[in-house]
């Protein structure tokens, strides 16, 4: 029941904030902040309870769940459930939610009520995505989160906001509809096999598809998530959307929306279609690695700070994809940590860039220059997060990338090498940011205020979390572990369909056989 | 009477229909267009009569009566429109009534 409350609180707060916006601009902010904070606390309580409960009920399917009949004619249920994976992502959602409300405190002055309405509803949609285990409900939430995001970009964005918002919407819609077809095919196949109409995740897990169909259906899911992730070559919506969105929008896009793609891969693509995913893994991993390098190189080429940070997301999420398709414990845990750490570090970078833009009204690095002297604290903070994003050991991103690559190494040495070179290139762009924006002579005579108390209140926890993830990620890893084992269990190839017995033997324990020479 | 084979009757109706259609497509005067429509409708009516005669049923002829009625209704509305159009557009050329497009 608490899962429903988590969502309802946000939805109601959104509506309230929307109406409060007609009164003044303070109330929407306060309402949103309180609502997300309540949710955040609730999710932390869930986490702390869970850390003991996992030991008590190891056989429990989910940590928490709600299951109501919704549209019986189609076997659709309103079924929310939570395991370690969703729990962590939910905590991240609320954390970044709080940050987004705070960061918009000054930036958003127009249509404040409606802004917060959208913000709350995006969060609710994301929550739905992370919690839904009925595929219809999942699709519902998946589509639902797009609209408020669209508004966020289209109304409060920067110069080319319309273009960016429309592009974002079209990309995600098209891919989402492909997923819908895939879901439906799976659904009808399941019905043909069992005579039961069901969108339930657990029911559909064992659906037997012919290899050909499985591949197509898997691709339907894959493309939807790959666009969201975003994977090369479906990434081009992202730089535009990130660049044009208001700060809170960028934070949520980078920190959460992209994660829904990764989540989908983890939760659905591989467990539902183990064989197809296995066969497809070399392609996916190759694309992931291309994305890593390509994103980094493009980031290096940018002069717009926000665009640069946006391209780094392409690069970082490449690691996540790589880890997911390597599908062994190390790589999966790495992908998870990578997701969380990326959410925080990139989110923080967007906030800082947003802060800079607020102060200087430009995102062009060449117009900034030499800011260190005038805003040392902000510069130092930016340095910190830039370093986090190049995978400096001791910070969260490093753990994610290292584990991912450690796991990937078992699958493919070549891809690991290229990905490692991708990290190297990431140094180029991070240093470019520091050099162009912060260092150098203050030729433009900037004199702008440094981070204020509100901004510090946002930045300091995020820095601490990154340090914590970098130095003691164990609580996170432990929370994910049971969920991950379960996912790996699902993803064991179906005995009926395994055409080649050797494949099965190799795939033992969810470990994919080596792909050489990629 | 029964000696007229059905397909010949239908052929006649078809030819009439085609004539009406051709008139619809080539004439620009609204009144002529309405007349062409009448021809088309009556061709269809004729086809009904022929078909009814094939099965020895009165149904075809009954339908024809319905068609006549409705055609009359249509034309009356049509003529009313023609009046209004002439008043507004000062012409009966249908191609003039193409302000909305694209």
């Amino acid at each position, binding site marked *: 029941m608490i899962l429903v409350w988590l969502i309802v609180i946000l939805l109601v707060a959104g509506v309230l904030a929307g109406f409060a916006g007609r009164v003044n601009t303070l109330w929407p902010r306060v309402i949103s902040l309180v609502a997300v904070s309540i949710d955040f606390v609730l999710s932390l309580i869930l986490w702390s309870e869970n850390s003991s409960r996992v030991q008590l009920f190891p056989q429990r399917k989910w940590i928490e769940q709600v299951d109501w009949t919704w549209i019986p004619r189609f076997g659709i249920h309103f079924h929310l459930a939570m395991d370690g994976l969703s729990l962590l992502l939910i905590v991240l959602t609320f954390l970044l939610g709080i940050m987004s409300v705070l960061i918009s405190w000054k930036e958003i002055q127009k249509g404040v009520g409606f802004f917060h309405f959208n913000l709350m509803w995006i969060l609710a949609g994301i929550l739905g995505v992370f919690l839904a285990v009925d595929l219809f409900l999942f699709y519902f939430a998946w589509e639902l989160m797009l609209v408020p995001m669209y508004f966020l970009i289209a109304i409060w964005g920067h110069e080319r906001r319309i273009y960016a918002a429309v592009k974002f919407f079209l990309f995600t819609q098209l891919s989402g509809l492909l997923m819908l077809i895939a879901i439906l095919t799976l659904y009808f196949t399941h019905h043909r096999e069992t005579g039961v109409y069901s969108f339930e995740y657990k029911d559909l897990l064992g659906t037997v598809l012919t290899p050909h169909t499985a591949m197509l259906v898997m691709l339907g899911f894959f493309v939807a998530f790959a666009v969201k992730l975003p994977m090369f070559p479906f990434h*081009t919506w992202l730089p535009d959307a990130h660049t044009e969105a208001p700060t809170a929008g960028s934070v949520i896009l980078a920190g959460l929306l992209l994660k829904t793609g990764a989540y989908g891969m983890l939760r659905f693509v591989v467990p539902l279609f183990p064989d197809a995913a296995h066969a497809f893994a070399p392609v996916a991993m190759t694309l992931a690695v291309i994305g890593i390098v390509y994103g980094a190189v493009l980031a290096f080429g940018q002069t717009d700070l926000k665009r640069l940070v946006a391209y780094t997301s392409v690069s970082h999420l490449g690691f996540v994809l790589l880890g997911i398709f390597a599908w062994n414990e190390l790589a999966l845990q790495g992908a998870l940590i990578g997701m969380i750490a990326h959410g925080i570090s990139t989110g923080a970078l967007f906030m800082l860039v947003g802060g800079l833009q607020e102060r200087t009204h430009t995102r062009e690095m060449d117009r900034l220059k030499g800011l260190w002297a005038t805003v040392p604290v902000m510069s130092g903070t930016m340095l910190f997060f830039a370093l986090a994003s190049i995978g400096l050991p001791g910070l969260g991103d490093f753990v994610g990338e290292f*584990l991912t690559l450690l796991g990937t190494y078992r699958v493919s040495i070549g891809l690991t090498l290229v990905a490692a070179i991708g990290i190297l290139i990431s140094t180029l762009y991070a240093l470019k940011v520091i050099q162009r924006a912060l*260092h150098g002579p203050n030729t433009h005579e900037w004199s702008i205020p440094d981070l204020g108390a509100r901004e510090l209140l946002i930045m300091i926890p995020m820095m601490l979390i990154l340090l914590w993830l970098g130095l003691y990620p164990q609580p996170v890893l432990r929370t994910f572990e049971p969920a991950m084992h379960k996912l790996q269990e699902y993803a064991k190839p179906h005995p009926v369909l395994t055409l080649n017995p050797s494949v099965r033997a190799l795939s033992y324990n969810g470990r994919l056989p080596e792909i050489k020479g990629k | 009477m029964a000696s007229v084979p059905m397909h010949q009757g239908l052929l006649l109706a078809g030819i009439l229909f085609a004539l009406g259609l051709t008139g619809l497509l080539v004439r620009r005067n609204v009144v002529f267009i309405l007349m062409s429509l009448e021809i088309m409708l009556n061709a269809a009516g004729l086809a009904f009569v022929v078909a009814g005669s094939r099965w020895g049923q009165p149904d075809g002829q009954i339908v024809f009566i319905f068609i006549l009625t409705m055609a009359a209704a249509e034309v009356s509305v049509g003529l009313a429109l023609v009046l209004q159009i002439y008043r507004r557009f000062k012409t009966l050329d*249908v191609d003039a009534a193409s302000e909305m497009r694209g």
Partner: protein
Amino acid sequence: MFHLVWLIPAFPIASFLVLAIFGTRLSKKAVPLFGVGSIALSAVVSILIMFRFLTSPPPGNHYTQILWTWVDVGGFKPQIAFYLDALSVLMTLVVTCVGFLIHLYSAEFMQEDEGYSRFFAYMNLFVASMCTLLLGNNLLLLFLGWEGVGLCSYLLIGFWYRDPANGLAARKAFIVTRVGDTAMTMGLFLLFDKLGTLQIQDLMHQALLHWAVGSPYAVAAALLLLGGAVGKSAQLPLQTWLPDAMAGPTPTSALIHAATMVTAGVYLIARTHILFSLAPSAQFAVAVVGAATLILAGFSALTQPDIKRILAYSTISQIGYMFLALGVGAWSAALFHFMTHAFFKALLFLGAGVIIESLHHEHNIFKMGGLRKELPLAFWTFLAAGCSLAGLPLITAGFYSKGLIIWDTWSSAQGSHVLWFAAVIGVLLTSLYTFRLIFVVFFGEVKTPVHKRPGLRMMVPCVILAVLSVVGGFLDTPPFLGGVHSFTDFMHLALPVMTEGPAGGMTEILSESFVTLAFLVGLYLAYFFYVQKREYAEKLTAPAIGKALHQFWLSDWGMDWLYERVFVRPIIWIARVDKQDFVDNIYSGMALLTEFCYRGVRKTETGRIRWYAAGIAAGSIIFVAIVLFL
């Protein structure tokens, strides 16, 4: 006692945090209190641990302190844990003590700088990282320190951030070393994949169990680690960053780019010496890299006009000696040279700092001169260090450490005569460029007047280091000069004894004589060209070939030029050309196509009734045709 080891990195970290957070609000007095004091505390702890280690060594001569488990996933279980043995204790001691002296020096040197607290924050972070590197009990923690020192190096090279050239040098340093780090990470992946752990002692144990000598895995892993070491220690082919790194404040150059960080590669190889022993070809590669580097850098040092760049090439060259020693299995010799090098090279830089500071930030040695009288204390300390570097026989530490390496190069089972010869040539070069530097700077007529003289806080460290540069060598002397083995014996608690090979007619005393000879030749040449016949030196570079060679050496054998064209420009070019992301054209193309279709179909909506009716008629006819004929 040993359980205090965590304090060694903890003090600087704490100080770093204080300085980073409150730095701008602290007074000029308080900053060094934290910045220097923390290092002093670390040094004290190190000394205590060293003392304890000598007097009552822990069981098995090593001690591990586990703080917490870092990560525990699928059998990968690195810990945040510190490992003490002779190797790490020694290096930590050197790092903290030399570090303390340099910090003390900086307290005065950097006094006028606006980034005073920032400087100490970075320096403290560096010391903490370096100690973590040295003390970490697994390769991942080592890597954390490894990257940490790289970061600090970057930050400090670019410390004076207003000048874009400094930023460029800083980035170059960071990126070039990261190239090596990439290789190193691959090495870590390989090691973990094959041996299932990154805990260094376990790893070595497992390697011995699973890999035969010459096993391809061992070779690959060793070469990959060597890649990391080469980057960090500025050896061929990744040495290009170090001369540029001299853009940083001079104490930084002394601490990071001379005494400590650049020797991290040496430490890494020594730490994983078992792996290298299992991979003789990789170990031979280490020796070759070392020998080649020491020669090439020596030549480059000959031509440099910038005092700090001379020292930088000298550092590269001296680390080449250490690599050479590692390559021939003379583990303790390498460490011995590391220690003495830390003393004299730090001192050289500090001395250079004094000179530069007193001459209005003048770096060009040819604009200096006659400073012997002007800055006597600086001269004497600098001379002591210089002699030590060049290997003045019998009384300097450099002579003993370098002589040991050279002899080991001959006598080791893995050594070779060619390498020995290269090392001796290296001595000649070292002596030549060192005395070229000394003669040009301290002798002759005064060219730039001295405007400022160093204070106590700057000179005390110099004097202490000068003493160490001289007496440090007596810890380990050849048999014919007393035969002290205390250093080697201590190192053998952690590192294996070198395997002797056939001496082939050479004796240690003969080898040392050759070294002495080389030293003297170098000294004489320097005297001849830079004191007696200054004009001859210019004549050397007058002919085309001399000029070309001069230019070639000056530009570090053209490697920067090469890298610029092969790596840097293509990447920048690609990034610039593809700024707009050509992939996006696919999608804009699709959008354009759609718009084109729109324009097309729009033409059908003519607004004409007859056209519409024709559409209906045509549709009907087509459909009738379809149902009839299909």
